[in-house]
Protein backbone atom coordinates (compact mmCIF):
# COMPACT_ATOMS: atom_id res chain seq x y z
CA UNK A 1 0.00 0.00 0.00
CA UNK A 2 2.25 2.87 -1.16
CA UNK A 3 0.91 6.23 -0.09
CA UNK A 4 0.61 8.02 -3.41
CA UNK A 5 -1.40 5.27 -5.07
CA UNK A 6 -4.47 6.12 -2.97
CA UNK A 7 -6.94 8.05 -5.14
CA UNK A 8 -7.79 11.24 -3.25
CA UNK A 9 -11.53 11.74 -3.74
CA UNK A 10 -12.12 14.93 -1.79
CA UNK A 11 -9.11 17.03 -0.94
CA UNK A 12 -11.20 18.79 1.75
CA UNK A 13 -11.31 15.79 4.09
CA UNK A 14 -7.66 15.99 5.21
CA UNK A 15 -8.53 14.83 8.68
CA UNK A 16 -7.90 11.29 7.52
CA UNK A 17 -4.15 10.68 7.99
CA UNK A 18 -3.78 8.49 4.94
CA UNK A 19 -5.40 11.07 2.69
CA UNK A 20 -3.30 13.78 4.33
CA UNK A 21 -0.10 11.88 3.54
CA UNK A 22 -1.16 11.53 -0.09
CA UNK A 23 -1.95 15.26 -0.19
CA UNK A 24 1.46 16.12 1.26
CA UNK A 25 3.13 13.75 -1.19
CA UNK A 26 1.65 15.72 -4.08
CA UNK A 27 1.95 19.28 -2.74
CA UNK A 28 5.44 19.08 -1.23
CA UNK A 29 7.52 19.17 -4.46
CA UNK A 30 5.60 22.25 -5.64
CA UNK A 31 6.16 24.03 -2.33
CA UNK A 32 9.84 23.10 -2.30
CA UNK A 33 10.21 24.65 -5.75
CA UNK A 34 8.46 27.86 -4.70
CA UNK A 35 10.64 28.08 -1.57
CA UNK A 36 13.86 27.71 -3.56
CA UNK A 37 12.72 30.35 -6.01
CA UNK A 38 11.77 32.81 -3.27
CA UNK A 39 15.06 32.30 -1.49
CA UNK A 40 16.99 32.91 -4.70
CA UNK A 41 15.11 36.15 -5.42
CA UNK A 42 15.32 37.25 -1.80
CA UNK A 43 19.04 36.69 -1.52
CA UNK A 44 19.77 38.57 -4.73
CA UNK A 45 17.58 41.50 -3.68
CA UNK A 46 19.11 41.67 -0.22
CA UNK A 47 22.56 41.60 -1.76
CA UNK A 48 21.73 44.53 -4.03
CA UNK A 49 20.07 46.61 -1.29
CA UNK A 50 22.07 49.78 -0.40
CA UNK A 51 23.97 49.96 2.87
CA UNK A 52 22.24 51.68 5.74
CA UNK A 53 23.74 55.14 6.43
CA UNK A 54 23.74 54.52 10.18
CA UNK A 55 24.46 50.83 10.70
CA UNK A 56 26.59 50.26 7.62
CA UNK A 57 26.68 46.81 6.10
CA UNK A 58 25.43 45.03 9.22
CA UNK A 59 21.90 45.89 8.14
CA UNK A 60 22.11 42.89 5.82
CA UNK A 61 21.92 40.65 8.84
CA UNK A 62 18.42 42.04 9.36
CA UNK A 63 17.24 40.26 6.20
CA UNK A 64 17.83 36.98 7.97
CA UNK A 65 17.30 37.96 11.60
CA UNK A 66 13.86 39.57 11.35
CA UNK A 67 12.23 36.76 9.31
CA UNK A 68 13.64 34.16 11.73
CA UNK A 69 12.28 36.03 14.76
CA UNK A 70 8.95 36.54 13.00
CA UNK A 71 8.80 32.83 12.15
CA UNK A 72 9.53 31.78 15.73
CA UNK A 73 6.48 33.71 16.89
CA UNK A 74 4.30 32.58 13.97
CA UNK A 75 5.19 28.98 14.68
CA UNK A 76 3.94 29.28 18.25
CA UNK A 77 0.70 30.73 16.88
CA UNK A 78 0.37 27.70 14.58
CA UNK A 79 0.90 25.46 17.61
CA UNK A 80 -1.75 27.38 19.55
CA UNK A 81 -4.20 26.91 16.67
CA UNK A 82 -3.37 23.19 16.73
CA UNK A 83 -3.90 23.11 20.49
CA UNK A 84 -7.36 24.63 20.03
CA UNK A 85 -7.96 22.06 17.29
CA UNK A 86 -7.11 19.26 19.73
CA UNK A 87 -9.14 20.58 22.64
CA UNK A 88 -12.21 22.02 20.93
CA UNK A 89 -12.73 19.99 17.77
CA UNK A 90 -10.72 16.91 18.77
CA UNK A 91 -9.22 17.08 15.27
CA UNK A 92 -7.12 13.91 14.77
CA UNK A 93 -4.23 15.76 13.07
CA UNK A 94 -4.11 18.74 15.45
CA UNK A 95 -1.78 17.06 17.94
CA UNK A 96 0.37 15.80 15.07
CA UNK A 97 0.67 19.39 13.82
CA UNK A 98 1.59 20.78 17.26
CA UNK A 99 4.13 18.05 17.91
CA UNK A 100 5.70 18.48 14.46
CA UNK A 101 5.89 22.27 14.72
CA UNK A 102 7.70 22.45 18.10
CA UNK A 103 11.22 21.50 16.94
CA UNK A 104 10.95 23.70 13.85
CA UNK A 105 9.88 26.65 16.01
CA UNK A 106 12.76 26.02 18.39
CA UNK A 107 15.30 25.97 15.53
CA UNK A 108 13.94 29.26 14.14
CA UNK A 109 14.12 30.82 17.61
CA UNK A 110 17.73 29.72 18.04
CA UNK A 111 18.48 31.11 14.59
CA UNK A 112 16.83 34.43 15.52
CA UNK A 113 18.90 34.66 18.72
CA UNK A 114 22.10 33.69 16.93
CA UNK A 115 21.70 36.23 14.14
CA UNK A 116 20.53 38.79 16.74
CA UNK A 117 23.76 38.45 18.69
CA UNK A 118 25.82 38.46 15.49
CA UNK A 119 24.14 41.73 14.67
CA UNK A 120 24.60 43.05 18.23
CA UNK A 121 28.36 42.41 18.37
CA UNK A 122 29.39 45.08 15.80
CA UNK A 123 26.80 47.57 17.04
CA UNK A 124 27.03 47.24 20.82
CA UNK A 125 30.33 45.46 21.20
CA UNK A 126 28.87 42.48 23.13
CA UNK A 127 27.61 39.15 21.92
CA UNK A 128 24.47 39.22 24.05
CA UNK A 129 22.56 42.23 25.24
CA UNK A 130 19.43 41.97 27.37
CA UNK A 131 17.33 43.94 24.93
CA UNK A 132 13.59 43.56 25.60
CA UNK A 133 12.86 41.83 22.29
CA UNK A 134 15.86 39.50 22.40
CA UNK A 135 14.94 38.51 25.96
CA UNK A 136 11.32 37.79 25.03
CA UNK A 137 12.50 35.59 22.15
CA UNK A 138 14.81 33.84 24.63
CA UNK A 139 11.89 33.11 26.98
CA UNK A 140 9.95 31.83 23.96
CA UNK A 141 12.83 29.45 23.31
CA UNK A 142 12.53 28.17 26.91
CA UNK A 143 8.86 27.49 26.28
CA UNK A 144 9.59 25.61 23.07
CA UNK A 145 12.22 23.48 24.83
CA UNK A 146 9.78 22.78 27.67
CA UNK A 147 7.15 21.61 25.19
CA UNK A 148 9.64 19.45 23.31
CA UNK A 149 10.81 17.93 26.61
CA UNK A 150 7.18 17.23 27.51
CA UNK A 151 6.43 15.64 24.14
CA UNK A 152 9.47 13.41 24.40
CA UNK A 153 8.64 12.43 27.98
CA UNK A 154 5.12 11.36 26.99
CA UNK A 155 5.45 7.91 25.49
CA UNK A 156 1.88 7.52 24.32
CA UNK A 157 0.76 10.30 21.97
CA UNK A 158 -3.00 9.69 22.08
CA UNK A 159 -3.23 10.25 25.83
CA UNK A 160 -0.87 13.21 25.97
CA UNK A 161 -2.41 15.18 23.09
CA UNK A 162 -4.85 17.12 25.24
CA UNK A 163 -2.35 17.63 28.04
CA UNK A 164 0.30 19.25 25.84
CA UNK A 165 -2.43 21.26 24.09
CA UNK A 166 -3.45 22.70 27.45
CA UNK A 167 0.15 23.64 28.19
CA UNK A 168 0.51 25.33 24.79
CA UNK A 169 -2.61 27.39 25.51
CA UNK A 170 -1.43 28.38 28.99
CA UNK A 171 1.89 29.40 27.42
CA UNK A 172 0.07 31.44 24.79
CA UNK A 173 -1.96 33.28 27.40
CA UNK A 174 1.26 34.14 29.20
CA UNK A 175 3.13 35.57 26.19
CA UNK A 176 1.67 39.09 26.58
CA UNK A 177 2.35 38.98 30.33
CA UNK A 178 5.95 37.92 29.74
CA UNK A 179 6.36 40.56 27.01
CA UNK A 180 4.99 43.22 29.37
CA UNK A 181 7.19 42.14 32.28
CA UNK A 182 10.32 41.98 30.10
CA UNK A 183 9.66 45.47 28.73
CA UNK A 184 9.12 46.76 32.29
CA UNK A 185 12.22 45.00 33.52
CA UNK A 186 14.19 46.28 30.54
CA UNK A 187 13.28 49.93 30.98
CA UNK A 188 14.01 49.71 34.71
CA UNK A 189 17.54 48.34 34.49
CA UNK A 190 18.65 49.24 30.97
CA UNK A 191 20.12 52.67 30.21
CA UNK A 192 17.91 54.20 27.55
CA UNK A 193 20.87 54.68 25.18
CA UNK A 194 20.56 51.28 23.53
CA UNK A 195 19.83 51.65 19.81
CA UNK A 196 16.49 50.04 19.06
CA UNK A 197 16.97 46.81 17.19
CA UNK A 198 15.12 47.58 13.97
CA UNK A 199 16.79 50.98 13.52
CA UNK A 200 15.06 53.87 11.76
CA UNK A 201 11.87 53.27 9.75
CA UNK A 202 12.97 50.88 7.01
CA UNK A 203 13.60 52.51 3.66
CA UNK A 204 11.63 51.04 0.70
CA UNK A 205 14.77 49.71 -0.92
CA UNK A 206 15.32 47.54 2.13
CA UNK A 207 11.68 46.77 2.81
CA UNK A 208 11.08 44.71 -0.35
CA UNK A 209 14.02 42.34 0.14
CA UNK A 210 12.91 41.91 3.75
CA UNK A 211 9.36 41.06 2.68
CA UNK A 212 10.56 38.60 0.06
CA UNK A 213 12.88 36.93 2.56
CA UNK A 214 10.06 36.79 5.10
CA UNK A 215 7.80 35.17 2.50
CA UNK A 216 10.53 32.69 1.62
CA UNK A 217 10.92 31.78 5.30
CA UNK A 218 7.16 31.37 5.70
CA UNK A 219 6.76 29.09 2.68
CA UNK A 220 9.75 27.09 3.88
CA UNK A 221 8.11 26.78 7.30
CA UNK A 222 4.89 25.36 5.87
CA UNK A 223 6.84 22.95 3.69
CA UNK A 224 8.83 21.71 6.65
CA UNK A 225 5.74 21.63 8.85
CA UNK A 226 3.77 19.42 6.47
CA UNK A 227 6.74 17.14 5.91
CA UNK A 228 7.28 16.87 9.68
CA UNK A 229 3.59 16.10 10.16
CA UNK A 230 3.84 13.29 7.63
CA UNK A 231 6.84 11.93 9.52
CA UNK A 232 4.93 12.10 12.80
CA UNK A 233 1.99 10.17 11.32
CA UNK A 234 4.36 7.53 9.98
CA UNK A 235 6.14 7.37 13.37
CA UNK A 236 2.83 6.75 15.12
CA UNK A 237 1.89 4.11 12.56
CA UNK A 238 5.19 2.31 13.15
CA UNK A 239 4.62 2.42 16.91
CA UNK A 240 1.06 1.11 16.54
CA UNK A 241 2.23 -1.69 14.25
CA UNK A 242 4.97 -2.65 16.67
CA UNK A 243 2.47 -2.77 19.54
CA UNK A 244 0.15 -4.83 17.36
CA UNK A 245 2.99 -7.20 16.47
CA UNK A 246 3.89 -7.46 20.14
CA UNK A 247 0.35 -8.58 20.93
CA UNK A 248 0.80 -11.25 18.25
CA UNK A 249 -2.44 -10.59 16.43
Amino acid at each position, binding site marked *: *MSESSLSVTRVGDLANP*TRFIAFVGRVLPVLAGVTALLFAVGLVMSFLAP*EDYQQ*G*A*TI*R*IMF*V*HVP*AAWLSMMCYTVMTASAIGTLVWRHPLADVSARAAA*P*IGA*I*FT*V*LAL*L*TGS*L*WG*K*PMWGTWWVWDARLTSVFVLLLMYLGLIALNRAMDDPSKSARVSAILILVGFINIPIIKFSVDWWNTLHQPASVVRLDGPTIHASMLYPLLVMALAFTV*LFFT*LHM*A*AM*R*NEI*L*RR*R*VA*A*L*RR*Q*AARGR
Partner: protein
Amino acid sequence: MAYFGYIFASYLATAVALLGLIGWVVFDLRGRRADLAELEARGVRRRSAAAAEDR
Protein backbone atom coordinates in the same frame (compact mmCIF):
# COMPACT_ATOMS: atom_id res chain seq x y z
CA MET B 1 32.39 45.93 3.16
CA ALA B 2 32.95 46.41 6.88
CA TYR B 3 32.01 43.64 9.35
CA PHE B 4 31.98 41.12 6.47
CA GLY B 5 32.79 38.44 9.00
CA TYR B 6 29.60 39.00 10.96
CA ILE B 7 27.37 39.13 7.91
CA PHE B 8 28.92 36.02 6.46
CA ALA B 9 28.63 34.26 9.82
CA SER B 10 24.93 35.07 10.12
CA TYR B 11 24.11 33.91 6.58
CA LEU B 12 26.18 30.81 7.20
CA ALA B 13 24.29 30.16 10.43
CA THR B 14 21.01 30.59 8.58
CA ALA B 15 22.09 28.18 5.86
CA VAL B 16 23.25 25.62 8.41
CA ALA B 17 20.01 25.91 10.38
CA LEU B 18 17.67 25.67 7.39
CA LEU B 19 19.59 22.92 5.62
CA GLY B 20 19.81 21.12 8.95
CA LEU B 21 16.01 21.27 9.27
CA ILE B 22 15.50 20.05 5.71
CA GLY B 23 18.07 17.30 6.25
CA TRP B 24 16.42 16.19 9.51
CA VAL B 25 13.00 16.00 7.86
CA VAL B 26 14.29 13.97 4.89
CA PHE B 27 16.35 11.70 7.13
CA ASP B 28 13.37 11.15 9.43
CA LEU B 29 11.13 10.34 6.46
CA ARG B 30 13.55 7.75 5.10
CA GLY B 31 13.93 6.18 8.53
CA ARG B 32 10.17 5.86 9.07
CA ARG B 33 9.58 4.47 5.57
CA ALA B 34 12.34 1.93 6.20
CA ASP B 35 10.64 0.93 9.47
CA LEU B 36 7.30 0.58 7.70
CA ALA B 37 8.81 -1.46 4.89
CA GLU B 38 10.53 -3.72 7.41
CA LEU B 39 7.27 -4.21 9.33
CA GLU B 40 5.44 -4.84 6.07
CA ALA B 41 8.04 -7.46 5.18
CA ARG B 42 7.42 -9.16 8.53
CA GLY B 43 3.79 -9.39 7.53
CA VAL B 44 2.41 -7.07 10.19
CA ARG B 45 -0.68 -5.64 8.50
CA ARG B 46 -2.51 -2.46 9.49
CA ARG B 47 -6.13 -3.28 10.36
CA SER B 48 -7.46 -0.76 7.83
CA ALA B 49 -4.84 -1.89 5.29
CA ALA B 50 -6.01 -5.46 5.70
CA ALA B 51 -9.58 -4.26 5.47
CA ALA B 52 -8.69 -2.18 2.40
CA GLU B 53 -7.47 -5.32 0.73
CA ASP B 54 -10.58 -7.32 1.55
CA ARG B 55 -12.79 -4.61 0.03
